[in-house]
């Protein structure tokens, strides 16, 4: 009976970290609520914010829509890996899509289809701005932009997923408030 108890304890010791890690992935939902909200500055939480489990050393991309004359604040946080805070690298990229007609071969047939070619313009890169961890901007028109975030590899205590990769819970917080209307009306 003692042997059974001993085996059970060993099994628990072996498997419990794996169960906990799998649950941690689930716990990454809503990480963004732990990020610093700038409510005092008048910002409202924007539903395009995102939380998730990310592999360290990887890049994540979030496509959002920003409305004309609205001021946005973008920031990042990782409550599970405090050492990541202050070290995120991110870029704000605007993708401009242009339609052009091209011959596309599908099922052996050549069809003329409108194909959309996308060019990327980097609007902001925090590595060129003293690694600033928040970005506040306003746009003179509605745009579709992408936030590309690099999750740096940090030494120290790490969590691992089942494939052995280090992961972190990261929140990308987007907030908005009515911006200052400038210039002439279109």
């Amino acid at each position, binding site marked *: 009976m003692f042997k059974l108890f001993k085996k059970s304890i060993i099994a628990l010791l072996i498997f419990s970290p794996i169960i906990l890690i799998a649950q941690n992935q689930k716990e990454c939902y809503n990480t963004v609520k732990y990020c610093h909200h700038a409510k005092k500055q008048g910002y409202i939480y924007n*539903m395009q914010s995102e939380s998730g489990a990310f*592999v360290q050393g990887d890049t994540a991309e979030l496509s959002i829509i920003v409305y004309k*004359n609205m001021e946005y604040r973008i920031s990042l946080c990782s409550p599970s890996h405090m050492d990541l805070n202050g070290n995120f690298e991110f870029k704000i990229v605007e993708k401009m899509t242009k339609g052009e007609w091209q011959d596309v071969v599908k099922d052996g047939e050549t069809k003329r289809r409108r194909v959309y070619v996308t060019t990327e313009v980097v609007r902001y890169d925090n590595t060129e701005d003293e690694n600033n961890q928040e970005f*506040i901007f*306003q746009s003179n028109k509605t745009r579709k932009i992408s936030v590309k975030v690099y999750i740096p590899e940090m030494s120290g205590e790490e969590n691992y997923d089942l494939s052995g990769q280090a992961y972190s819970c990261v929140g990308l917080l987007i907030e908005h408030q009515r911006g200052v209307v400038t210039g002439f009306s279109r």
Partner: protein
Amino acid sequence: MMNYKSNKMFSKFMSLILCLVILACNNENKEPNNQENNDVDTTQVVNVEIDEINTNLILDTNINYQVPTPNELFSIIKDLEVTFDASLLNSTENDDKYTNGLLQALNFGIYSADLAFSASFGASNEALKYFGIVRDYGDKLKVSNAFDQTVFNRIENNIENNNIDSLFTISNETYFSAYSYLEENDRGATLSLIISGGWIEGLYIMTNLEKYNEGSELSYRISDQRFTYENLLGFMAKYNDDDLVSDMMSELAELEEVFLSFEQSEEEVITNKTKDGKYNFDGGVTLKMNQDQFNVLKEKVNELRTSIVEATI
């Protein structure tokens, strides 16, 4: 004998542990943001299926697409010189028609957008009425925890005090609670149907608020919906293996031709930094629609919206 029993018990114990591990791993695989899911194969499969939906859009499943809420949309629209029109709201009497999950999810989105429209424009009586129906749908779709009595009381108090801003904030919080609840409970397919319902209602209201007026701010805001359309399809593509979602994507694809026909002009891209460390984005792409394009878009949106509110979809 005892030893055999012990071994058997140990085997059962180990099986239980393994089951727990497998269950935990399965849950993990549903995590939409897990980079492990974003491999090349997934991208190819989803893109092939999207291709069958007849979209020419380039949707990359490695990207997380987000869609602004109806609250955010109407906070922009209310700044334009347009007036609230209660006749555009989906009648709460249509409620009985929505007997299946698809109709309930789509109309939950529609009623949520109606709530946002009413709250943004300070139509307090309508806001209270639509909050009530949204709360009922929260029960039907089992997201009722997002709409507790405290929130309902707060809305009533704000209406009594004519506090429009708080009404709008509560409407925003309500949508957020429902959204988060569905996302956390791996109900992304239902969430994407709700979002598409809200998006359709937003566009329906915008295209029916006023007659087409070339160069008006409203016409530009309608043209801008092409961007949100692209992200809506991108968001839904994650749940494309659900038949209801892929059917809805096919319905939405009917709007694509007119959206993509909008005139597109480009200006030099300029990013300025202000003295207070904030940035301004200037230049880039401007979309513009003409009278004919507006008419086609309006007709198609009205048709799609009618099929949802009349439960014929």
